[in-house]
Protein backbone atom coordinates (compact mmCIF):
# COMPACT_ATOMS: atom_id res chain seq x y z
CA UNK A 1 0.00 0.00 0.00
CA UNK A 2 1.44 3.34 -1.07
CA UNK A 3 2.04 5.96 1.56
CA UNK A 4 3.50 8.46 -0.90
CA UNK A 5 2.27 8.74 -4.45
CA UNK A 6 3.69 11.22 -6.98
CA UNK A 7 1.43 11.42 -10.03
CA UNK A 8 3.01 13.30 -12.86
CA UNK A 9 4.33 15.96 -10.47
CA UNK A 10 5.89 19.12 -11.89
CA UNK A 11 7.56 21.80 -9.80
CA UNK A 12 8.96 25.05 -11.11
CA UNK A 13 10.67 28.03 -9.54
CA UNK A 14 9.82 30.84 -11.93
CA UNK A 15 11.23 29.78 -15.28
CA UNK A 16 13.29 26.93 -13.79
CA UNK A 17 11.71 23.48 -14.01
CA UNK A 18 12.96 21.54 -10.99
CA UNK A 19 10.72 18.43 -11.05
CA UNK A 20 9.66 17.12 -14.46
CA UNK A 21 6.51 14.99 -14.44
CA UNK A 22 7.71 12.73 -11.66
CA UNK A 23 5.84 9.47 -11.00
CA UNK A 24 6.81 7.62 -7.84
CA UNK A 25 5.13 5.27 -5.40
CA UNK A 26 6.58 4.58 -2.00
CA UNK A 27 5.15 1.82 0.16
CA UNK A 28 4.93 1.56 3.91
CA UNK A 29 8.15 0.26 5.42
CA UNK A 30 10.40 1.19 2.53
CA UNK A 31 13.70 2.94 3.23
CA UNK A 32 14.31 4.95 0.09
CA UNK A 33 17.72 6.51 -0.42
CA UNK A 34 17.70 9.44 -2.82
CA UNK A 35 20.91 10.43 -4.55
CA UNK A 36 21.88 12.63 -7.47
CA UNK A 37 24.01 15.56 -8.50
CA UNK A 38 23.63 18.96 -6.84
CA UNK A 39 20.61 20.80 -8.19
CA UNK A 40 18.92 17.65 -9.52
CA UNK A 41 15.86 18.29 -7.33
CA UNK A 42 16.33 15.91 -4.38
CA UNK A 43 15.52 18.46 -1.68
CA UNK A 44 12.64 19.83 -3.70
CA UNK A 45 11.16 16.35 -4.15
CA UNK A 46 11.36 15.78 -0.41
CA UNK A 47 9.92 19.20 0.44
CA UNK A 48 6.96 18.67 -1.90
CA UNK A 49 5.95 15.62 0.15
CA UNK A 50 5.28 17.71 3.27
CA UNK A 51 4.15 20.69 1.20
CA UNK A 52 6.98 22.99 2.20
CA UNK A 53 7.04 23.51 -1.56
CA UNK A 54 3.83 23.76 -3.53
CA UNK A 55 3.60 21.58 -6.64
CA UNK A 56 2.68 23.21 -9.95
CA UNK A 57 1.33 20.23 -11.87
CA UNK A 58 0.09 16.71 -11.30
CA UNK A 59 -0.90 15.44 -7.88
CA UNK A 60 0.90 14.18 -4.82
CA UNK A 61 -0.93 12.02 -2.28
CA UNK A 62 0.53 11.32 1.16
CA UNK A 63 -1.25 8.81 3.37
CA UNK A 64 -4.40 9.27 1.28
CA UNK A 65 -4.35 13.07 1.53
CA UNK A 66 -3.53 15.26 -1.46
CA UNK A 67 -1.06 18.08 -0.86
CA UNK A 68 -3.54 20.23 -2.79
CA UNK A 69 -6.41 19.57 -0.37
CA UNK A 70 -6.08 22.83 1.57
CA UNK A 71 -4.33 24.15 4.63
CA UNK A 72 -5.84 21.99 7.34
CA UNK A 73 -5.23 18.83 5.30
CA UNK A 74 -1.65 19.92 4.64
CA UNK A 75 -1.14 20.21 8.39
CA UNK A 76 -2.34 16.63 8.76
CA UNK A 77 0.17 15.52 6.11
CA UNK A 78 2.94 17.31 7.98
CA UNK A 79 2.01 15.54 11.18
CA UNK A 80 2.28 12.21 9.33
CA UNK A 81 5.57 13.11 7.64
CA UNK A 82 8.32 14.18 10.04
CA UNK A 83 11.27 16.08 8.58
CA UNK A 84 14.93 16.27 9.55
CA UNK A 85 16.97 19.10 8.06
CA UNK A 86 20.61 19.38 7.10
CA UNK A 87 21.03 22.35 9.47
CA UNK A 88 19.07 20.71 12.37
CA UNK A 89 16.92 23.85 12.85
CA UNK A 90 16.37 23.28 16.56
CA UNK A 91 14.46 26.02 18.37
CA UNK A 92 17.29 27.94 20.09
CA UNK A 93 15.24 29.36 22.96
CA UNK A 94 14.20 25.89 24.13
CA UNK A 95 16.15 23.13 25.81
CA UNK A 96 16.56 19.77 24.10
CA UNK A 97 13.68 18.41 26.17
CA UNK A 98 11.45 21.39 25.34
CA UNK A 99 12.30 21.03 21.65
CA UNK A 100 11.13 17.43 21.68
CA UNK A 101 8.06 18.11 23.84
CA UNK A 102 7.06 21.10 21.70
CA UNK A 103 5.32 19.22 18.87
CA UNK A 104 3.11 17.03 21.05
CA UNK A 105 2.15 20.04 23.17
CA UNK A 106 1.39 22.52 20.43
CA UNK A 107 0.34 20.16 17.63
CA UNK A 108 -1.33 17.28 19.40
CA UNK A 109 -2.41 19.43 22.35
CA UNK A 110 -1.35 17.09 25.15
CA UNK A 111 -0.35 18.33 28.61
CA UNK A 112 3.13 19.61 29.36
CA UNK A 113 3.86 16.87 31.89
CA UNK A 114 2.80 14.12 29.52
CA UNK A 115 4.69 15.68 26.60
CA UNK A 116 7.88 15.93 28.65
CA UNK A 117 7.48 12.35 29.82
CA UNK A 118 7.37 11.20 26.19
CA UNK A 119 10.19 13.56 25.28
CA UNK A 120 12.44 12.02 27.93
CA UNK A 121 11.79 8.56 26.50
CA UNK A 122 12.59 9.78 22.98
CA UNK A 123 15.78 11.49 24.08
CA UNK A 124 16.83 8.25 25.74
CA UNK A 125 16.10 6.42 22.52
CA UNK A 126 18.48 8.69 20.56
CA UNK A 127 21.09 8.31 23.31
CA UNK A 128 20.67 11.74 24.89
CA UNK A 129 18.89 10.95 28.15
CA UNK A 130 21.40 13.12 30.04
CA UNK A 131 21.19 16.14 27.75
CA UNK A 132 17.55 17.16 28.12
CA UNK A 133 18.27 20.38 29.98
CA UNK A 134 20.90 21.62 27.50
CA UNK A 135 20.17 24.32 24.97
CA UNK A 136 20.98 23.58 21.30
CA UNK A 137 23.98 25.93 21.41
CA UNK A 138 25.44 23.74 24.16
CA UNK A 139 25.26 20.54 22.08
CA UNK A 140 27.52 19.15 19.36
CA UNK A 141 26.21 18.93 15.82
CA UNK A 142 25.63 15.20 16.11
CA UNK A 143 23.74 15.66 19.35
CA UNK A 144 21.66 18.46 17.85
CA UNK A 145 20.72 16.30 14.90
CA UNK A 146 19.67 13.46 17.18
CA UNK A 147 17.48 15.89 19.15
CA UNK A 148 16.00 17.00 15.83
CA UNK A 149 15.17 13.38 14.98
CA UNK A 150 13.54 12.94 18.39
CA UNK A 151 11.60 16.16 17.88
CA UNK A 152 10.20 14.90 14.58
CA UNK A 153 9.37 11.47 16.05
CA UNK A 154 7.53 13.06 18.98
CA UNK A 155 4.57 13.94 16.75
CA UNK A 156 4.31 10.20 15.94
CA UNK A 157 4.72 10.41 12.17
CA UNK A 158 4.16 7.44 9.85
CA UNK A 159 6.92 8.58 7.53
CA UNK A 160 10.25 10.33 8.03
CA UNK A 161 11.97 12.61 5.52
CA UNK A 162 15.70 13.26 5.91
CA UNK A 163 17.45 15.93 3.82
CA UNK A 164 21.21 15.31 4.02
CA UNK A 165 21.04 14.77 7.79
CA UNK A 166 24.78 14.20 8.15
CA UNK A 167 26.19 16.65 5.59
CA UNK A 168 26.73 19.44 8.10
CA UNK A 169 28.55 17.13 10.53
CA UNK A 170 32.20 16.29 10.99
CA UNK A 171 32.92 12.74 9.80
CA UNK A 172 33.43 11.42 13.32
CA UNK A 173 29.97 12.63 14.39
CA UNK A 174 28.09 11.15 11.44
CA UNK A 175 27.93 7.57 12.63
CA UNK A 176 25.99 8.46 15.80
CA UNK A 177 23.23 9.99 13.67
CA UNK A 178 23.33 7.17 11.12
CA UNK A 179 23.05 4.62 13.91
CA UNK A 180 19.86 6.28 15.19
CA UNK A 181 18.48 6.28 11.64
CA UNK A 182 19.36 2.62 11.19
CA UNK A 183 17.56 1.71 14.43
CA UNK A 184 14.53 3.60 13.21
CA UNK A 185 14.56 1.72 9.91
CA UNK A 186 14.84 -1.58 11.76
CA UNK A 187 11.68 -0.71 13.70
CA UNK A 188 9.90 -0.53 10.38
CA UNK A 189 9.67 3.24 9.92
CA UNK A 190 9.06 4.36 6.35
CA UNK A 191 11.94 6.65 5.44
CA UNK A 192 13.04 8.78 2.51
CA UNK A 193 16.64 9.84 2.90
CA UNK A 194 18.67 12.22 0.75
CA UNK A 195 22.28 11.37 1.53
CA UNK A 196 25.74 10.72 0.16
CA UNK A 197 26.35 7.96 2.71
CA UNK A 198 26.63 5.00 0.38
CA UNK A 199 27.35 2.56 3.21
CA UNK A 200 24.02 3.55 4.74
CA UNK A 201 22.30 3.09 1.38
CA UNK A 202 23.74 -0.38 1.03
CA UNK A 203 23.14 -1.59 4.57
CA UNK A 204 19.87 0.11 5.48
CA UNK A 205 18.24 1.17 2.24
CA UNK A 206 15.61 -1.04 0.62
CA UNK A 207 15.50 1.09 -2.50
CA UNK A 208 17.89 3.47 -4.24
CA UNK A 209 16.73 6.29 -6.49
CA UNK A 210 19.09 8.31 -8.67
CA UNK A 211 17.77 11.71 -9.75
CA UNK A 212 19.04 13.76 -12.65
CA UNK A 213 17.74 17.11 -13.82
CA UNK A 214 14.35 16.83 -12.10
CA UNK A 215 13.69 13.26 -13.17
CA UNK A 216 14.11 9.84 -11.62
CA UNK A 217 16.54 8.09 -13.89
CA UNK A 218 17.41 4.96 -11.92
CA UNK A 219 15.27 3.16 -9.34
CA UNK A 220 16.20 -0.21 -7.88
CA UNK A 221 17.75 -2.30 -5.13
CA UNK A 222 20.75 -0.60 -3.50
CA UNK A 223 22.89 -3.75 -3.49
CA UNK A 224 22.37 -4.35 -7.23
CA UNK A 225 22.81 -0.75 -8.28
CA UNK A 226 25.90 -0.15 -6.17
CA UNK A 227 27.56 -3.40 -7.24
CA UNK A 228 26.70 -2.97 -10.88
CA UNK A 229 25.59 0.50 -11.92
CA UNK A 230 24.54 0.05 -15.52
CA UNK A 231 23.54 3.66 -16.05
CA UNK A 232 26.77 5.43 -17.06
CA UNK A 233 25.94 8.68 -15.27
CA UNK A 234 25.08 6.82 -12.08
CA UNK A 235 28.38 4.97 -12.38
CA UNK A 236 30.21 8.26 -12.76
CA UNK A 237 28.29 9.82 -9.87
CA UNK A 238 29.16 6.91 -7.58
CA UNK A 239 32.82 7.24 -8.42
CA UNK A 240 32.70 10.80 -7.13
CA UNK A 241 30.92 10.10 -3.85
CA UNK A 242 32.92 7.03 -2.89
Amino acid at each position, binding site marked *: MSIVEFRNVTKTFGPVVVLREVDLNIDKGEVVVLIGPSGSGKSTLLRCINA*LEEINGGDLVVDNISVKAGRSQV*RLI*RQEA*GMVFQQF*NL*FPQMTALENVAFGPRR*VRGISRAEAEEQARALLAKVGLAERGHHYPAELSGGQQQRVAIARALAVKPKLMLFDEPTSALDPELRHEVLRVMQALAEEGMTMIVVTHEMAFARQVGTRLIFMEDGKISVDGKPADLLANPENPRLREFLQHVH
Partner: protein
Amino acid sequence: MEFDWSVIGEAMPALLSGARLTILITLAGLVGGLAVGFVAGLMRAYGNAFLNAVAFAYIELIRGTPIVVQVMFIYFALPVLADIRVNPMTAAVTAIVVNAGAYIAEIVRGSFLSVHRGLKEAGLALGLPLWKVLVYIIGPVAFRRMIPPLGNQFIVSLKDTSLFIVIGVGELTRQGQEIMAANFRAVEIWSAVAILYLLMTGTLTLILRVTEKRMRIL
Protein backbone atom coordinates in the same frame (compact mmCIF):
# COMPACT_ATOMS: atom_id res chain seq x y z
CA MET B 1 25.32 86.17 36.18
CA GLU B 2 24.90 83.90 39.11
CA PHE B 3 23.24 80.49 39.12
CA ASP B 4 20.28 80.95 41.45
CA TRP B 5 19.27 77.64 43.02
CA SER B 6 16.14 79.12 44.57
CA VAL B 7 14.73 79.66 41.06
CA ILE B 8 14.96 75.92 40.50
CA GLY B 9 13.40 75.20 43.85
CA GLU B 10 10.43 77.41 43.06
CA ALA B 11 10.03 76.00 39.55
CA MET B 12 10.34 72.38 40.60
CA PRO B 13 6.69 71.58 41.40
CA ALA B 14 5.56 72.85 38.01
CA LEU B 15 8.45 71.12 36.24
CA LEU B 16 7.70 67.84 38.00
CA SER B 17 4.05 67.99 37.04
CA GLY B 18 5.24 68.59 33.48
CA ALA B 19 7.54 65.60 33.71
CA ARG B 20 4.64 63.50 34.97
CA LEU B 21 2.66 64.43 31.89
CA THR B 22 5.64 63.67 29.67
CA ILE B 23 5.85 60.20 31.20
CA LEU B 24 2.12 59.68 30.86
CA ILE B 25 2.06 60.64 27.17
CA THR B 26 5.12 58.50 26.48
CA LEU B 27 3.79 55.42 28.27
CA ALA B 28 0.31 55.58 26.79
CA GLY B 29 1.72 56.40 23.37
CA LEU B 30 4.23 53.57 23.43
CA VAL B 31 1.72 50.96 24.59
CA GLY B 32 -0.44 51.92 21.63
CA GLY B 33 2.58 52.28 19.38
CA LEU B 34 3.73 48.76 20.22
CA ALA B 35 0.31 47.34 19.40
CA VAL B 36 0.10 49.25 16.11
CA GLY B 37 3.74 48.48 15.32
CA PHE B 38 3.36 44.74 15.87
CA VAL B 39 0.27 44.55 13.69
CA ALA B 40 1.74 46.70 10.91
CA GLY B 41 5.12 44.95 11.10
CA LEU B 42 3.58 41.49 10.87
CA MET B 43 1.36 42.65 8.01
CA ARG B 44 4.52 43.75 6.21
CA ALA B 45 6.36 40.53 6.94
CA TYR B 46 3.64 37.92 6.49
CA GLY B 47 0.55 39.64 5.07
CA ASN B 48 -0.87 39.12 1.59
CA ALA B 49 -0.30 41.76 -1.06
CA PHE B 50 -3.19 43.92 0.16
CA LEU B 51 -2.26 43.95 3.87
CA ASN B 52 1.35 44.48 2.94
CA ALA B 53 0.46 47.51 0.79
CA VAL B 54 -1.71 49.06 3.52
CA ALA B 55 1.05 48.72 6.12
CA PHE B 56 3.66 49.97 3.67
CA ALA B 57 1.62 53.11 2.87
CA TYR B 58 1.11 53.85 6.57
CA ILE B 59 4.79 53.43 7.42
CA GLU B 60 6.01 55.56 4.52
CA LEU B 61 3.45 58.28 5.20
CA ILE B 62 4.57 58.60 8.82
CA ARG B 63 8.29 58.25 8.24
CA GLY B 64 8.11 60.79 5.45
CA THR B 65 6.54 63.58 7.53
CA PRO B 66 7.73 65.36 10.69
CA ILE B 67 6.00 64.53 13.95
CA VAL B 68 5.16 68.20 14.53
CA VAL B 69 3.17 68.20 11.30
CA GLN B 70 1.49 64.95 12.36
CA VAL B 71 0.33 66.31 15.69
CA MET B 72 -0.79 69.60 14.15
CA PHE B 73 -2.78 67.59 11.64
CA ILE B 74 -4.43 65.52 14.36
CA TYR B 75 -5.17 68.55 16.54
CA PHE B 76 -6.12 71.23 14.00
CA ALA B 77 -6.91 69.55 10.68
CA LEU B 78 -8.82 66.46 11.83
CA PRO B 79 -11.58 68.50 13.53
CA VAL B 80 -12.12 70.40 10.29
CA LEU B 81 -11.99 67.31 8.08
CA ALA B 82 -13.92 64.82 10.16
CA ASP B 83 -15.68 66.89 12.78
CA ILE B 84 -13.78 65.13 15.58
CA ARG B 85 -12.98 67.27 18.58
CA VAL B 86 -9.73 66.23 20.22
CA ASN B 87 -8.21 67.67 23.36
CA PRO B 88 -4.46 68.39 23.34
CA MET B 89 -3.66 65.38 25.51
CA THR B 90 -5.49 62.95 23.22
CA ALA B 91 -3.81 64.51 20.19
CA ALA B 92 -0.40 64.12 21.85
CA VAL B 93 -0.91 60.46 22.77
CA THR B 94 -2.35 59.69 19.34
CA ALA B 95 0.62 61.33 17.66
CA ILE B 96 3.05 59.11 19.59
CA VAL B 97 0.96 56.00 18.87
CA VAL B 98 0.86 56.72 15.16
CA ASN B 99 4.46 57.91 14.90
CA ALA B 100 6.17 55.31 17.09
CA GLY B 101 3.92 52.64 15.54
CA ALA B 102 5.45 53.21 12.12
CA TYR B 103 9.03 52.97 13.35
CA ILE B 104 8.25 50.00 15.59
CA ALA B 105 6.62 48.26 12.61
CA GLU B 106 9.94 48.38 10.79
CA ILE B 107 11.74 47.04 13.86
CA VAL B 108 9.22 44.19 14.23
CA ARG B 109 9.35 43.30 10.55
CA GLY B 110 13.13 43.36 10.50
CA SER B 111 13.58 41.18 13.56
CA PHE B 112 10.98 38.60 12.54
CA LEU B 113 12.51 38.32 9.08
CA SER B 114 16.03 38.13 10.51
CA VAL B 115 15.17 34.82 12.19
CA HIS B 116 16.66 31.95 10.19
CA ARG B 117 14.15 30.58 7.66
CA GLY B 118 14.87 27.04 8.81
CA LEU B 119 13.14 27.67 12.15
CA LYS B 120 9.90 28.60 10.43
CA GLU B 121 10.16 25.53 8.22
CA ALA B 122 10.89 23.28 11.18
CA GLY B 123 7.80 24.62 12.94
CA LEU B 124 5.58 24.25 9.88
CA ALA B 125 6.98 20.77 9.24
CA LEU B 126 5.66 19.66 12.63
CA GLY B 127 2.17 20.48 11.38
CA LEU B 128 1.64 23.80 13.15
CA PRO B 129 -0.37 26.63 11.62
CA LEU B 130 1.70 29.70 10.75
CA TRP B 131 0.33 31.78 13.62
CA LYS B 132 1.52 29.24 16.18
CA VAL B 133 4.94 29.16 14.52
CA LEU B 134 5.09 32.95 14.84
CA VAL B 135 3.88 33.01 18.45
CA TYR B 136 5.87 30.13 19.89
CA ILE B 137 8.98 29.87 17.72
CA ILE B 138 9.84 32.96 15.67
CA GLY B 139 8.36 35.51 18.08
CA PRO B 140 10.48 34.64 21.12
CA VAL B 141 13.68 34.66 19.05
CA ALA B 142 12.73 37.88 17.24
CA PHE B 143 11.68 39.57 20.47
CA ARG B 144 15.16 39.32 21.95
CA ARG B 145 16.61 40.98 18.86
CA MET B 146 14.06 43.78 19.08
CA ILE B 147 15.05 45.02 22.50
CA PRO B 148 17.99 47.28 21.53
CA PRO B 149 16.23 49.03 18.61
CA LEU B 150 12.99 49.28 20.60
CA GLY B 151 14.88 50.94 23.45
CA ASN B 152 16.22 53.45 20.99
CA GLN B 153 12.72 54.19 19.71
CA PHE B 154 11.35 54.56 23.27
CA ILE B 155 13.94 57.25 23.98
CA VAL B 156 13.24 59.05 20.71
CA SER B 157 9.49 59.02 21.45
CA LEU B 158 10.02 60.32 24.97
CA LYS B 159 11.99 63.25 23.65
CA ASP B 160 9.50 63.80 20.82
CA THR B 161 6.82 64.67 23.40
CA SER B 162 8.66 67.98 23.86
CA LEU B 163 7.43 68.98 20.40
CA PHE B 164 3.84 68.93 21.65
CA ILE B 165 4.60 72.36 23.03
CA VAL B 166 3.08 73.47 19.70
CA ILE B 167 -0.41 72.32 20.71
CA GLY B 168 -0.14 73.58 24.28
CA VAL B 169 0.12 70.29 26.19
CA GLY B 170 1.55 71.08 29.63
CA GLU B 171 4.41 68.59 29.41
CA LEU B 172 7.90 69.27 30.70
CA THR B 173 9.21 71.51 27.92
CA ARG B 174 6.01 73.57 27.93
CA GLN B 175 6.25 74.05 31.69
CA GLY B 176 9.84 75.18 31.35
CA GLN B 177 8.88 77.61 28.60
CA GLU B 178 6.08 79.13 30.69
CA ILE B 179 8.21 79.61 33.78
CA MET B 180 10.99 81.07 31.70
CA ALA B 181 8.59 83.56 30.13
CA ALA B 182 7.65 84.76 33.61
CA ASN B 183 11.07 85.00 35.28
CA PHE B 184 13.57 85.08 32.38
CA ARG B 185 15.91 82.67 34.22
CA ALA B 186 16.90 80.71 31.10
CA VAL B 187 20.04 79.07 32.48
CA GLU B 188 18.44 77.66 35.62
CA ILE B 189 15.20 76.57 33.99
CA TRP B 190 16.64 74.90 30.88
CA SER B 191 19.35 73.21 32.97
CA ALA B 192 16.68 71.79 35.24
CA VAL B 193 14.55 70.70 32.28
CA ALA B 194 17.50 69.03 30.60
CA ILE B 195 18.40 67.15 33.78
CA LEU B 196 14.84 65.93 34.23
CA TYR B 197 14.87 64.57 30.66
CA LEU B 198 18.22 62.92 31.32
CA LEU B 199 16.82 61.26 34.44
CA MET B 200 13.89 59.89 32.49
CA THR B 201 15.90 58.62 29.52
CA GLY B 202 18.58 57.30 31.88
CA THR B 203 16.01 55.26 33.80
CA LEU B 204 14.65 53.89 30.51
CA THR B 205 18.14 52.94 29.36
CA LEU B 206 18.79 51.19 32.66
CA ILE B 207 15.57 49.16 32.46
CA LEU B 208 16.42 48.11 28.91
CA ARG B 209 19.96 47.13 29.85
CA VAL B 210 18.67 44.91 32.62
CA THR B 211 16.04 43.31 30.37
CA GLU B 212 18.65 42.67 27.71
CA LYS B 213 21.02 41.11 30.22
CA ARG B 214 18.36 38.78 31.54
CA MET B 215 17.54 37.49 28.07
CA ARG B 216 20.10 35.63 26.04
CA ILE B 217 20.18 37.05 22.53
CA LEU B 218 19.75 34.13 20.15
